[in-house]
């Protein structure tokens, strides 16, 4: 009896999660967009900057390709979250989600299914990217991989939730590009994914300090170098980063649930 009640509660979450998995596998173009594009960015930007840019605040000899590596994985997670967001807006107006909204399920279970779906897809792509660590000059330890995967999951769950906060408030995808360029991309740019905080002007340092994703990237970076913390250079501590990342993810999820609840259709 108890088992049945639990199943009933989990059923909508599971079914929405599973739908995301199936859809992703049937839309190859999404894989290209979310995986190949960041890969190109990493090779072109990383390679291009490596001659002129030695990231300050990192140990002697850290190549830009290596510094940029955790950042580009974060971009993979961000792109997947953006995809989930755009599809939610369309889905809600004239697609599958219309019917979900009149089904006897709570809005929080809808958001949970969506966020878990988005986070899982992001995680799969992040793990694929993790295989490229040797190419970046990073030697991973087993515990480092486990920790990095866990942090990736928390970050992508948080980013998807952040995207859903926007998606549930938007009436059409028209305005989404503006929001993406004004909110989501700057959050990534200022997170220490692209350049370190060391040596930048004070105002920019503050902006980076206030960016929640800074702590996600820092936690991820520290996990990658779990066996060799000295190689990280200047970055917020692991404990602080973990606490703030989990906090950000929790707040984003609650905000997404509220946005979904307030949304009429």
């Amino acid at each position, binding site marked *: 009896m108890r088992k049945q009640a639990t199943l009933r509660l989990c059923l909508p979450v*599971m*079914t929405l999660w599973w739908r995301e998995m199936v859809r992703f596998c049937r839309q190859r173009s999404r894989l290209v967009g979310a995986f190949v594009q960041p890969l190109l960015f990493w090779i072109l930007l990383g390679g291009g900057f490596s001659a002129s840019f030695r990231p300050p605040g990192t140990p002697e000899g850290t190549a830009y390709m290596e510094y940029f590596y955790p950042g580009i994985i974060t971009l993979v997670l961000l792109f997947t979250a953006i995809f989930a967001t755009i599809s939610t807006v369309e889905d809600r107006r004239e697609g*599958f*989600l*219309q019917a979900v909204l009149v*089904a*006897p399920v709570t809005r929080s279970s809808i958001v949970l299914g969506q966020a878990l779906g988005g986070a899982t897809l992001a995680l799969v792509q992040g793990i694929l990217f993790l295989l490229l660590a040797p190419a970046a000059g990073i030697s991973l330890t087993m515990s480092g991989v486990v920790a990095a995967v866990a942090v990736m999951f928390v970050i992508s769950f948080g980013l998807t939730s952040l995207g859903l906060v926007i998606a549930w408030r938007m009436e059409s995808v028209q305005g989404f590009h503006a929001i993406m360029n004004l909110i989501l991309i700057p959050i990534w740019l200022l997170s220490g994914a692209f350049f370190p905080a060391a040596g930048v002007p004070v105002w920019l340092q503050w902006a980076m300090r206030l960016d929640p994703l800074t702590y996600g990237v820092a936690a991820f970076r520290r996990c990658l170098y779990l066996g060799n913390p000295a190689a990280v250079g200047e970055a917020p501590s692991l404990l602080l980063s973990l606490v703030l990342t989990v906090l950000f993810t929790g707040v984003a999820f609650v905000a997404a649930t509220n946005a979904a609840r307030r949304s009429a259709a």
Partner: protein
Amino acid sequence: MTKARTDMDIPAVEVEGLRHTYGAREALAGVTFSAMRGEIFGFLGPNGGGKTTLFKILSTLMPPTGGSVRVFGHDLAHESQAVRPRLGVVFQHPSLDPQLTVTENLMHHGHLYGLWGRALHSRTRATLDQLGLGDRASDPVKTLSGGLQRRAELAKVLVHRPELLVMDEPSTGLDPGARQDFNTVLRRLREQENVTILLTTHLIDEAEQCDRVGVLHQGRLVAMGDPDTLKGSVGGDVVVIWADNPEDMGVKMRERFGCEASVIDGALHVEHPCGHEFVREVVDAFPGAVKSATFGRPTLEDVFIRLTGRRLWSHNA
């Protein structure tokens, strides 16, 4: 018909003084009606008449800003969760996922209504067979024709055996054949399972197949009744005359025949007990002035014209 349910005597839907405003704009201005079990009730009206707002409220997407809606005795404003399991909603835009197969769509739907496992599997198969979709079950929805997609949409909604169907312009985009086919499915559903159906439409032929029709105009129900009674309110035949100068001709006809002629979209509309004789009289009386004339039994559009002084669609369609 199975009439053994205990709450069978309660109307399926009771709406009283329903109002809805978007800011300053009043979309519904006091709508009152009730629908009995097993009734097919259509809301006919032009775009902007309030149909979509009414649909959104009845489908639990949006709470009304005034008045009350009771579905199976439950107040929609406070007990929508009690109503939802018994409600099936068909949207104007498809809610099928085109990437998934027909069966996958139905399975997801079942999960959302707390069905799973073998029970859901057999329910899905039975519903697809019932709607004649058994052989397309494992095809992706995007490979189905428009008519079959619409039928699959209905199949999806029927998986959880709703007692009330609320549909927004259900035959949008269907050719007349597919529309007829969809209608037959609805009638069978009503006969076999006593499902109550509320639908909005701007199509005359769709409205005429309903048991009762409510005419929605500017947020109000300006008429309500079975299609024959509504059409009976129009006196006799409806004669439509096209002339070079309809206004002028209207005045002359009023003088000569003492009948009320109104000009709508450039054509003269006259109600007359005996259409074919009147057409001959008019043609004889104004030689050369009549470009063409038709007469026929009144349709629901004529009812709408009589009530509102305008056509359902602003252009001849």
